[in-house]
C-alpha cells in the first residue's frame, strides 16, 4: 500500500539526519512516539512533537527510556505504528523491553543515534559502539532486524524500511544511526506519497472464534488483531502457546523460540541488503556500514589509484548479517578490511564467516569523530601486500 499523503512532505529539503528520520517515520505511518530526549537523538522527537499534531499522531515525553520502550508496545497492540528514539545510555535501559517485543512479536521501531560510550561517554560525538548490543542486548534467543543509514536521505529511506520490515516479520526493528549522520545536514528528497511503499499490519482476516494469537502463517509469522476489537488476545513475555497463554513446557519453549529465530533466519535472503562495488576480481574487500561507508571511499579510491584491486561491500542491513555472501567472498579474496567506530564488533561476524580462510583486518576507532581515510588506506595497503 502507499503512504498516507497527509504525512508526506514531498519535495527537496535541506535537513539533518534526525529530522529526516522523523519524516521517514511519519511517511511510514508511525502515529505514536514515546521518548525521553537524549543527545544526539533529541532533534528526532523535537520534530515529532511539532509535526504530530498535524498528522493525528500522539507523542508522549515519558519519564525515562524504560517507560518509552514499553509505551510504544502498548500503542502497537492498540493498533498504531509506533517508535521510540534514543542514544546509548537510553538504549541500555531499553534492553528488557526489546526482549519483550521479540517474545510478543510486537512490530515496533527503535532508533538509536549512537554516541561514543561506554556509559554517558561523549554525548555530542559519534560512535558505532552499540552494534552488538542491538543484536544481543536482551536475554535469551531472539532475532531482530537492524538497518544502518549513512546520510540524511537514508535516515528517511531506512526508517521507512525499518517500519516495513518490522511489520512484515513482527520483530522489533532498529535504525542504527550515529551522531555524525544524525546531525549532518544534506539534501533529502521526499517522494510523493504514491511512490512510497508501506507494509501494513498483518491484520487477521477471520472471525473471532477462529483466532489464535500466535498461530503462525506459512512464513512463520502470525497475524495480529487490535486490542478491544472483540478478539481474544493475551500478550505475555512468558513462554506461550498458539493461544497466547503461558505454557511452561519444554515443548512449548522449543517450538516458540525456534519459530522466533527461524522466521528471520529462513527469510534472510529477502531481508539482507548490501551494496557492492568492484567486488568481482577484488583482492581486498572493505566491509563497511553507516558513516564508515563514506569515510572509507577516499581510502578505497586512493588504493585503486595505486593499482590495488579493492572491492567495497557496504552493509545496509547489518542484522541479520549476510553470512552467505561473506562466506562466498572468503574463498575468493585475499583479505577483508573492516573499519568501524568501535574496537571490533561487526569484524567478529566477518571473521566468523571468513572462518580462518583469509585475514580480516579491523580498523578500529573509539569514536568521538570518524576515521581518517588514511588509516583505512594503510590497512588496505597492508592487507593487499599480505601473503
Amino acid at each position: 500500500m502507499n503512504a498516507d499523503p497527509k504525512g508526506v512532505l514531498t519535495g527537496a529539503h535541506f535537513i539533518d539526519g534526525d529530522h529526516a528520520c522523523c519524516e521517514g517515520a511519519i511517511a511510514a505511518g508511525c502515529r505514536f512516539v514515546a521518548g525521553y530526549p537524549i543527545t544526539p537523538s533529541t532533534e528526532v522527537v523535537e520534530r515529532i512533537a511539532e509535526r504530530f499534531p498535524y498528522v493525528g499522531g500522539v507523542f508522549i515525553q515519558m519519564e525515562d527510556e524504560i517507560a518509552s520502550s514499553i509505551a510504544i508496545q502498548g500503542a502497537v497492540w492498540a493498533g498504531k505504528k509506533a517508535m521510540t528514539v534514543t542514544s546509548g545510555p537510553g538504549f541500555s535501559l531499553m534492553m528488557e523491553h526489546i526482549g519483550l517485543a521479540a517474545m510478543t512479536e510486537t512490530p515496533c521501531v527503535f532508533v538509536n543515534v549512537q554516541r561514543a560510550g561506554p556509559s554517558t561517554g561523549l554525548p555530542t560525538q559519534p560512535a558505532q559502539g552499540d552494534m552488538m548490543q542491538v543484536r544481543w542486548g536482551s536475554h535469551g534467543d531472539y532475532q531482530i532486524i537492524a538497518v544502518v543509514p549513512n546520510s540524511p536521505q537514508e535516515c528517511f529511506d531506512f526508517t521507512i524500511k525499518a517500519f516495513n520490515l518490522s511489520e512484515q516479520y513482527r520483530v522489533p526493528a532498529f535504525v542504527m544511526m550515529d551522531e555524525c549522520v544524525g546531525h549532518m545536514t544534506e539534501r533529502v528528497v521526499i517522494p510523493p506519497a504514491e511512490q512510497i511503499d508501506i507494509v501494513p499490519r498483518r491484520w487477521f482476516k477471520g472471525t473471532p472464534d477462529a483466532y489464535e494469537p500466535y498461530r503462525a502463517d506459512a512464513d512463520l509469522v502470525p497475524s495480529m488483531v487490535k486490542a478491544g476489537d472483540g478478539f481474544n488476545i493475551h500478550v505475555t513475555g512468558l513462554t506461550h502457546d498458539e493461544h497466547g497463554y503461558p505454557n511452561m513446557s519444554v515443548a512449548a519453549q522449543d517450538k516458540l523460540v525456534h519459530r522466533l529465530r527461524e522466521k528471520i533466519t529462513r527469510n534472510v535472503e529477502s531481508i539482507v541488503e548490501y551494496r557492492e562495488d568492484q567486488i568481482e576480481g577484488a583482492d581486498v574487500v572493505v566491509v563497511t556500514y553507516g558513516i564508515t561507508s563514506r569515510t572509507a571511499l577516499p581510502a578505497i579510491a586512493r588504493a585503486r589509484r595505486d593499482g590495488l584491486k579493492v572491492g567495497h561491500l557496504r552493509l545496509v542491513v547489518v542484522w541479520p548479517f549476510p553470512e552467505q555472501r561473506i562466506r562466498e567472498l572468503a574463498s575468493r579474496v585475499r583479505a577483508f578490511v573492516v573499519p568501524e567506530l568501535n574496537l571490533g564488533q561487526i569484524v567478529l561476524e566477518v571473521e566468523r564467516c571468513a572462518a580462518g580462510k583469509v585475514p580480516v583486518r579491523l580498523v578500529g576507532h573509539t569514536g568521538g569523530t570518524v576515521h581518517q581515510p588514511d588509516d583505512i588506506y594503510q590497512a588496505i595497503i597492508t592487507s593487499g601486500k599480505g601473503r
Partner: protein
Amino acid sequence: MARTEIKIGGFGGQGVILSGYIIGRAASIYDNKYATMIQAFGPEARGSACSAQVIVDEEPIAYPYITRPTMMVLMSQEAYTRFSPELAPGGLLITEEELVSVRTTGQDVRHLSIPATRIAEELGKKMVVNIVMMGYFGAVARVTSKEALRKAVEVSVPKGTQELNLKAFDRGWEYVPA
C-alpha cells in the same frame, strides 16, 4: 568548482549556524550541487566560539567533515583566534571589520572585511549582521549563484523578516571595500 570547504565562525547567537545552513541549502537545493553541513554542538554553540562547516561539491560528498577549509567567514575575535590558523594557504578570509582585529601574521590568505554590524544597524536591526556577511561572502566567493543564495536566505529566515533580510543580503552583496 571542486570540493570547497567553508567554515563559519562567531559567537553563539550571531546566526553562525543559520549562515552555514543558508549556503548549504543554496548549493544543494537551488543550485543542484551537493552540500554537507555539520554544526558545532555542546556548550560552544551557546556562547563562546561557535562554528558551522559546509562542504560544497559538484560530486557526491564522501568524507563529511572539513579537513582544510579554503574559505572562512569569521564574526568574532575568539573565532578568529581559534579558527583562522586552520585556513588553507591561499584561502579566502572574510571578517566582520569592527568585531575582528586581524593581525598581520604573514599567513598566505586573501583577507577581506566588511562592517556588517554597522550596515545591519543602518537597516534598523543588528540581528541581520550574519545575512549581510552572507551577501558579501556570496559576491566574493561565488560558491553558489546569487539567485540560489538569495532564495535560500528568503526561505530560511523567520516569517515576517524576509524583506529586511533580503535588504541585508543585497547590501552585503553590493558592498565594495573602501
